[in-house]
């Protein structure tokens, strides 16, 4: 189902006209309302008059995460506080959090893009949504909440955690759609399997985001929970969840490009890459009032495709995130992404997707260890076949990543589960 056909299936030339107009308005807004953006633009010798179409984007300065931190808390707002009706903040694991302010119109936009997301997954007013994202400063809970309400669905604001209660309400209320992080979805799937209550559930789909996950992990969630799993992409800096969403074709996420204008740049040269090439995803918000961002570098690596999707939507699609420069580890001089390890483990089908990477330094050499949980159904009583499993995982990691990792098989559930963002890496090197 398509929630907003006129926007989601807009002709490309009409979309471009709309984007041109909205970009001009946004640049005017930030130039006149934000000291930060005005001085950045003046430093580069650019004024709003230089921006006529989206081709002029390249003339504008980039914004990066540290800019948002430096301007903590409200320095990037382009609306007076009297117009800000909601504040959210990122978890801020290092230093100050990133704060986002929304006007009433921004909240309306957010609900709209989330309603598009849920409709694209086949949901409607007849669905019962269990929102198991954390509520609070984190954008996941409230973002999904208001989107599902706009859709007209029945919303259960249960928030994250308390697995037993999640399963109980899921059973008693007959939840049909689940919203949470993919790692928590897997955790729930295991608990449901253990309790043997899958047959009592009416669950048929889920919308998972807020952390990177692979296609293999999607299949595992789909098989274990017997549902269709949809990806949601979003960032607090842009709006929260709902920047891009899967449709039922699941062949790339549709970007709500009438609100969020994407670019792909080469992270080294900062120049736009050729169409279809992989690079860093950059967003400019073109309708936001509270905290518009200009050319925000997401640090996420992906590629874009502008072909019309089989679902009928014309909007540009982004590939699943292929890595994140923040997550990137440099081990023995080689770039390693945790998502590479995850895809290796899942292609085995013999080792659970629960894993943890340990990096340390011994005798001036980096050590690289991957702890992998052994699945009960694949445990063999034969030591040599277990050792062989370990050896095969090591060989596969070597061929995908390019360096040797020492794999350690560990007991199920010995790796900590998280209800928020999964922590996959412990880097004990003291390099700085």
């Amino acid at each position, binding site marked *: 189902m398509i929630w907003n056909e006129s926007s989601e299936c807009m002709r490309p030339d009409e979309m471009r006209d709309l984007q041109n107009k909205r970009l001009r308005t946004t640049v005017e807004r930030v130039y006149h309302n934000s000291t930060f953006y005005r001085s950045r633009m003046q430093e580069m010798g650019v004024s709003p008059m230089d921006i006529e179409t989206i081709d002029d984007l390249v003339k504008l300065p980039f914004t990066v995460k540290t800019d948002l931190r430096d301007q903590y808390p409200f320095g990037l707002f382009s609306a007076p506080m009297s117009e800000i009706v909601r504040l959210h903040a990122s978890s801020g694991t290092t230093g100050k959090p990133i704060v986002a302010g929304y006007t009433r119109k921004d909240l309306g936009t957010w609900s709209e893009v989330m309603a598009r997301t849920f409709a694209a997954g086949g949901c409607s007013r007849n669905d019962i949504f269990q929102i198991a994202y954390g509520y609070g400063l984190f954008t996941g809970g409230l973002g999904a909440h208001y989107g599902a309400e706009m859709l007209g669905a029945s919303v259960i604001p249960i928030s994250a955690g308390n697995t037993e209660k999640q399963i109980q309400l899921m059973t008693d209320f007959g939840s049909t759609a689940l919203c949470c992080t993919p790692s928590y979805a897997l955790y729930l799937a295991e608990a449901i399997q253990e309790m043997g209550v899958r047959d009592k559930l009416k669950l048929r789909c889920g919308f998972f985001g807020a952390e990177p996950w692979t296609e293999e992990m999607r299949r595992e969630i789909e098989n274990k929970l017997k549902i269709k799993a949809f990806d949601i992409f979003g960032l607090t800096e842009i709006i929260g969840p709902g920047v891009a969403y899967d449709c039922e074709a699941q062949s790339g996420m549709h970007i709500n490009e009438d609100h969020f204008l994407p670019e792909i740049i080469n992270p080294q040269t900062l120049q736009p890459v050729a169409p279809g090439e992989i690079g860093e995803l950059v967003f400019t918000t073109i309708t936001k009032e509270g905290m518009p961002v200009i050319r925000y570098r997401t640090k996420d690596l992906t590629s874009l495709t502008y072909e019309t999707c089989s679902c009928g939507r014309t909007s540009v699609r982004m590939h699943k995130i292929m890595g994140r420069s923040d997550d990137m580890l440099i081990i023995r001089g080689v770039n390693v992404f945790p998502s590479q390890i995850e895809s290796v483990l899942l292609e085995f089908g013999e080792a659970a997707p629960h894993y943890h990477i340990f990096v340390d330094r011994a005798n001036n050499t980096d050590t690289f260890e991957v702890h992998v949980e052994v699945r*009960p159904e694949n*445990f063999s009583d034969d*030591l040599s076949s*277990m050792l062989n499993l370990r050896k095969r995982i090591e060989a596969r990691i070597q061929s995908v990543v390019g360096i040797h990792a020492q794999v*350690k*098989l560990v*007991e*199920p559930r010995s790796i900590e589960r998280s209800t928020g963002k999964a922590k996959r890496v412990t880097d004990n090197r003291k390099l700085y």
Partner: protein
Amino acid sequence: MIIQQLSIFLENKTGRLTEVTQVLGQAGINLSAFSMAESSDFGIMRVILSDPEKAQHLLTEKGFTVTLSDVVCLRVPNTPGTLSQALLVLSEAGVSIEYMYAFARKDDAALVVIRANDTQRCIDALQSSNLNLVKASEMYDF
């Protein structure tokens, strides 16, 4: 003549073996024999016990990875040369042994637990040579 053996995946961490034995002890399950196969960071505990299915259920509940496998138990007199006789029978029958472990009992006989690549063939070969196999009921019931 098939005996069910329980195997448990254990990380080489202090206290894991204690936990296993506590779970079984509290449930009143008696261990008849066990052996450990270990690598540098994990091990497999193989155990013959009074109620393998109950033990499997209990340990799985506690989050352990366990599996049941079929083994054969041979009773041989505790005297020189008797084991090699039995092993000769197996190799002549083309049965290969994945692993084995032995323990002695009060009645002066030695018991040898054998995990073969082909359990039924192993039983047939040993029985046709009139070697003495232990029944499951005898094994669990000490």
